[in-house]
């Protein structure tokens, strides 16, 4: 297992070298979007409207941060459970999104999309919101302000610690439970 320092926007050659289990320290710009924001992004796509950020090479962080205290860019900001975004993720990958950050399992359609369009799914430590917020150096709401914690934010991150859970080659890092499911 290797450790890579990557900077956004991510390119296919960055992602093809990553294997499930690798550690990535990500720097650059990432965009927050969770349930309600994903619905709006896809509604806008249906209407052929311009989206609030460039999808090509983008990284989407599934997070709804807590309010920022004075003097800090953001409050607590750990990942939310990703499967709820499975409905939308393949479409966004087909339009150039390169990676998402969340926690928990993805469905088969998302795993296939990662292989087809060259993408990865990164895991961040759930519940470690105070710790992860230390890697976020700037935050700005850029769309859907009325959604409150679910608004789309542009974040600047430095050495954000991630684990490759699903890579572009079909591998997954989660342990298979010792149970016949």
């Amino acid at each position, binding site marked *: 297992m290797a450790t890579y320092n990557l900077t956004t926007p991510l390119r296919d050659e960055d992602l093809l070298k990553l294997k499930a289990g690798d550690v990535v320290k990500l720097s650059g710009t990432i965009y927050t979007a969770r349930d309600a924001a994903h619905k709006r992004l896809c509604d806008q796509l249906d209407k052929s409207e311009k989206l609030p950020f460039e999808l090509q090479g983008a990284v989407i962080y599934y997070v*709804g941060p*807590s309010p920022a205290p004075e003097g800090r860019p953001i409050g*607590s900001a750990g990942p939310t459970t990703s499967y709820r975004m499975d409905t939308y993720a393949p479409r966004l990958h087909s339009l150039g999104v390169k990676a998402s950050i969340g926690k*928990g399992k993805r469905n088969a359609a998302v795993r296939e999309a990662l292989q087809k369009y060259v993408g990865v799914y990164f895991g961040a*430590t759930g*519940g470690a919101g*105070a710790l992860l917020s230390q890697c976020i150096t700037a935050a700005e709401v850029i769309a859907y302000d009325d959604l409150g914690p679910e608004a789309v934010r542009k974040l600047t991150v430095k050495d954000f610690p991630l684990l490759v859970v699903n890579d572009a080659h079909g591998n997954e890092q989660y*342990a298979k439970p010792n149970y016949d499911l």
Partner: protein
Amino acid sequence: MKSIKAQDIHDAVVGIVMSAARYLPEDVRKALKTSLDGETSDSAREILGQLLENADLAAESGLPLCQDTGVGVFFVELGDEVHVEGNLVEIINGAMVEGYQKGLLRKSLCHPLTRKNTGDNSPAVIHVDIVPGDKLKIKHMAKGGGSENMSRCTMLTPAQGWAGIKEFVVRRMAEAGPNPCPPTIVGVGIGGTFDLAPTLAKKALFRPVGVRNPDPEIATMEQELLDAINDLGIGPMGLGGKTTSLDVKIEMRPCHIASLPLAVNVQCHSSRIKEVVL
């Protein structure tokens, strides 16, 4: 009859709402530390280390432990010799709203269909039990959505018994896998009625980690479930290891002769619980 002022209840609830979000209970911290010492896998040790570091940082910085500061859940034990000067439910709800606002906690409640945020984290979920005595005990849990989503309830047949209960609970945790932020704490409600079993399961989560049910038979069942869940090998954040759950808590009540209600309420490692007695 003892009289308790609305303002005193309000201030106490604002206090526990704000502190629950920031300070990981000592029993949970201790359990994470014990798990860290027992884990051999690198990823499990890394994750558990991060969670302990996160708890220290939240306490020092004033940031919430987790960005999901949850639904404000309250279990109230109201002594039958207590008179509250005001409407207890309104006081608690108002104090919860103030605590989430002042504490810079995330407002996570919305209309179930339009998904429009209520804006102030209201309404609180409040359960009131009337108990003997002249005390008012208010227990608060900031319940996160990711783990709550992994919870389930079912109506087993009496013939399924303990084997059926064990199968349902362990299977549920296997299916939940990495989603509910393991290591989890698992609340199990057995018996009562369709509505009571999940309430029992949630009530069970208030018992500190490491403290078994006082009934020795139930205590044995708790340990058996905990061992079976940890044998799944899911581990911290689902990356493998010995620590899938920190504890299992069972609350049991008699049920109808036709029924065997069962509920599993999953709690993440960020088990934010605080209580106050007035």
